[in-house]
């Protein structure tokens, strides 16, 4: 029972704090799943994130569904998804009228604005940890090659992330 309560909390907190959609909740989920409850190592979490990013659909529910399943089976997946989705959806349905009234209030706009730097820092720290972990695992040169190549492919040449991940898998399968 305790386990399901923890799964609920682990996805409820990112769900109500993540301003900026699912991607904003990635570092918050990581904070709960890796640091607080230690269900996964950074490495395992990165696998979930890599696969999650190469599949279509909302990222927050993919993480909640899979991690919930990993920790507590099908019921765990259901609890995780519910905790990620329900609170914000219920607020949305209940408060839409009220929100419409205050939509141009500077207070409402500031809510999203003020949270952004926190999310940015959390994401930045996480990115740094991924690079550092890679440096420790496969060394500076391999890390640099893959980093630069994937940056150029995704951001300059607009190659679809799924293909970049697939390319990295092939590269790693043969050369690492």
């Amino acid at each position, binding site marked *: 029972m305790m386990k399901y309560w923890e799964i609920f909390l682990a996805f409820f907190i990112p769900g109500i704090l993540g301003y900026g959609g699912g991607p904003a909740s990635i570092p918050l989920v990581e904070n709960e799943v890796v640091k607080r409850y230690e269900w996964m190592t950074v490495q395992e979490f990165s696998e979930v994130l890599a696969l999650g990013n190469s599949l279509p659909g909302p990222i927050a529910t993919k993480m909640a569904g899979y991690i919930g399943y990993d920790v507590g089976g099908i019921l765990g997946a259901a609890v995780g998804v519910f905790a990620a989705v329900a609170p914000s959806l219920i607020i949305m349905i209940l408060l839409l009228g009220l929100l419409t009234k205050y939509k141009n209030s500077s207070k409402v706009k500031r809510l999203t604005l003020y949270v952004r730097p926190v999310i940015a820092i959390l994401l930045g720290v996480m990115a740094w940890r991924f690079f550092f972990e890679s440096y420790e695992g496969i060394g500076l040169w391999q890390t640099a090659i893959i980093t630069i190549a994937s940056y150029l492919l995704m951001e300059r040449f607009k190659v679809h992330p799924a293909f970049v991940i697939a390319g990295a898998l092939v590269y*790693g399968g043969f050369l690492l």
Partner: protein
Amino acid sequence: MQTQWNIFIAFFRVGILGYGGGPGSIPLIHKEVVDKYNWMDAEEFGDLLALANTLPGPIATKLSGYIGYRVSGFWGMMNAVFATMFPTIILMIVLLTSLSSIKEFDWVQGMVAAVIPVVGVMLAVLTWQFLDKAGKGMGWLQTGIMGLIIFVLLQLLTIHPGIIIGALLLIALFKKDKSTAKEGEPS
């Protein structure tokens, strides 16, 4: 019945075709809801999107849930949320479970190792997008100062991000309007 089927198909397509997480699927939702099924007009959708963005949580399920609710009540909502996320969660579970059963092979470990920097790049790009929005929204100086303070609180004092976000939300709500003071430090 036909309505429920339409809701299911509309959001199933959104879930299966939307890359880049929820925010990446917004144009697809627009296409289904406004262009194909005429459940709302473009202006209404724009308003809905703006409001959804002022609330926390995943954007795709907020939109699909609300639209499903509007079109056909509670079951429309359940149907829409389910259709948006179920297919990809199943894919995730199947792929990751099969991955972990072959994890011991060297070549699999090589594959996993090569993906880590790619995810690092994706996160770095996301970081930049959030910083850029923050900088354009409230100025680079304030973003920089806030970023620095938040970094110290999070990394050096290891305060839970929830507490910091909570404090910032309170500041956002209680700060007087029209004041241009450069506060913003969570106290």
